[in-house]
């Protein structure tokens, strides 16, 4: 009996070591890629420059108060080939399951995005909730920047997008799945945030965005326009509005923004996009004393300003024939499908008139009058 049990234990242990050969790989033998950067090169044979940022696991926090990263870079014909070769550059098994940020260098934006991006959609281990961004001047430069506020166990790049760290109306967040659907669907154009860094500063600046249309057309949104995009897409319900009127200069912190719009196509008339924007906020800064009676004036002034700026932003999009807010999609979504729906929209968008009705309501002067 005892011998039987002994035999069983031996069998179990050996089978454990034998069977665990397949797929069993300890966590410390894996190299976790936390960010992937793709740049373009001038070399025709090897058009891609792939950069991987690996987190090097360190013991306790006490032993290493700064996170340590390793970088791998290579130029290759395809990204898949690059990954294969990079595997020989390291002792660890590359694990892309934690690659939460994919940065595209400026130099690659002119190429066919669908082609460049294919591997990230096709491979199983890139997560659908990875963040995509454009890096200026290059993806490699972004990856190799380590801000001083970076702590072990938290990556500064993640904190920018995750809403766990900083939250700002100037940061556009685009997930991988969102990017892919915008890339392939008509009537909703891809938009990516731009991360900038300089040699000297050693920090990230993420307050611009770029909109794509087809392969060639692009529109860079400046800081202010990026904010308008965030407000109108309802990604951000907190923003600020600066108003200057003669001597008076005040800023409103909006904390509740609601946007809805309709596309009206009355027969024989110019098509109209009717947009209602409801903003509630409080005064954050002002050059004069804000008495309760003045709140109404403030609301009116702010409304006027907002209306003007939003209309201007929408016209900017229209002139450049880009559609990151999904007007085309809304058009298709509100009309019973027929064969010409797509073509109709192509015709309508350039001559669309924007009827923006922004209503700002200032609720309080803040803590002081």
């Amino acid at each position, binding site marked *: 009996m005892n011998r039987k049990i002994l035999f069983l234990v031996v069998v179990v242990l050996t089978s454990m070591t034998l069977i665990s050969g397949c797929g069993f*790989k300890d966590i410390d033998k894996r190299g976790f890629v936390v960010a992937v950067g793709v740049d373009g090169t001038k070399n025709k044979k090897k058009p891609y420059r792939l950069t991987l940022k690996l987190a090097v696991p360190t013991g306790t926090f006490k032993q290493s108060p700064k996170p340590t990263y390793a970088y791998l870079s290579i130029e290759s014909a395809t990204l898949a080939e690059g990954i294969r070769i990079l595997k020989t550059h390291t002792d660890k098994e590359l694990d892309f399951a934690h690659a939460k940020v994919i940065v595209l260098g400026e130099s690659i934006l002119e190429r066919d995005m669908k082609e460049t991006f294919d591997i990230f959609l096709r491979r199983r281990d890139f997560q659908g909730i990875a963040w995509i961004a454009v890096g200026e001047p290059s993806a490699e430069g972004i990856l190799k920047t380590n801000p001083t506020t970076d702590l072990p166990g938290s990556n500064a790049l993640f904190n920018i997008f995750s*809403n766990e760290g900083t939250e700002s109306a100037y940061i556009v967040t685009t997930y991988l*799945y969102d990017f892919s659907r915008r890339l*392939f669907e008509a009537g909703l154009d891809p938009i990516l945030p731009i991360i900038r860094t300089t040699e000297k500063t050693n920090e990230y600046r993420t307050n611009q965005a770029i909109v794509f249309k087809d392969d060639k057309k692009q529109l860079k949104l400046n800081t202010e326009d990026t904010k308008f995009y965030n407000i109108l897409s309802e990604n951000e319900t907190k923003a600020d509005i600066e108003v200057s009127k003669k001597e008076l200069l005040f800023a409103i912190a909006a904390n509740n923004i609601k946007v809805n719009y309709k596309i009206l196509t009355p027969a024989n008339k110019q098509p109209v996009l009717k947009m209602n924007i409801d903003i509630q906020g409080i005064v954050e800064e002002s050059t004069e004393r804000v008495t309760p009676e003045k709140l109404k004036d403030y609301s009116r002034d702010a409304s006027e300003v907002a209306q003007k700026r939003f209309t201007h932003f929408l016209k900017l999009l229209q002139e450049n024939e880009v559609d990151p807010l999904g007007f085309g999609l809304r058009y*298709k979504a509100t009309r019973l499908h027929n064969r010409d729906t797509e073509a109709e929209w192509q015709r309508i968008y350039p001559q669309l008139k924007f009827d923006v009705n922004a209503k700002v309501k200032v609720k309080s002067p803040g803590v002081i009058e």
Partner: protein
Amino acid sequence: MNRYFYYLLAVNMVAHIITSVPMVLFEARKGGAIVSMILSLILGTIMIYWITKIFTCFPGKGYPELLKEYTSKWISFPLLLSTALVWFTAGLITVITYSALLRRFLTPEMPLMGIISMIVLFVSFGILMNSRSVLYTVEIVALLSIPFTIFIFIKMYLDKGMNWDFVREAMMYIGNMPDYPSFSASLYVILGPANLIIFNRVFTDKQKMTWKQLLIIGITGAFALFTSYFIPIGFQGFQHINHLVHPWFLTADSIRMKFGFIERVLFIFALVNLAVSFLSILVHWHVTTELLKNIIWFKKFQWKGYNLTPLVFVVLFWIGSLVIIPYLTEPQLHTYTEYALNFLSPYVLVILFSLLWIKKRARA
């Protein structure tokens, strides 16, 4: 009806989303997917109502017993055999799809054979249990996993990434004529109670089937179908969704939990679905074994007082899955499941008609 009836219903409603059912619907998204869904919902509910109603007239009796009692052997034998085959295929579809999914998302390095044997090993134990224990298992696992599923569904509905404009765009195709594959596929979603053909054996008390219960079936069925069709569209877009091989898994990978040990909902979804799919396989193959027991029974095939005939069936299941699955490529797998789905759901009509006939004879 007994609460176990609803578990059978729920298992199919959740388990179908990993099979090819949503993909069949997405193929027909620019055609008559929506109308087919509505039609199948109505017809399916009526069919289920009818079947259940007939079974309530014969408490404690399964389909094989009824066939034996009221028909001749020449009719019951082919009917039982074909039913067993249909149910086996239904189970096999889930085994195939889930093992492919496991290989893609959870255990990419493990050989396919290993994955299949792992699933089938546990299922083999389950299908040999008595029907009562199967129902208890179904209840416990369902009670543990379905709340998670509903949590994930709700999280998806409320997520910012869910773009309702895509859903509306899909809705704009409501005017098209229904087509057969999507009708048959969406019928599969609410056909869970068809498992009563065996499990009615343990419902020994007189059950009631009222319009209230019919309403529950209809509403949950509508919710399940609506969810499985529109959520992926809301996340992945409308025009190109048929390019995705695992639309539901990619959709689950599109939402994130900001706080918690696990950030990617995909893994919770995969594990919960593993549990529910397992139940689906368990239920279908248990029914198959019980049906086969009524056709083939070796009286002399005994060892220490146990009859070993069910083991023969289990061996057949093993051979079936281990031979068929590695042989297929993924696109083939999808095509064949589509054929199977085209055939499976209407087969319930055959059962329904035979039951109606039995009822008529019973009354006479």
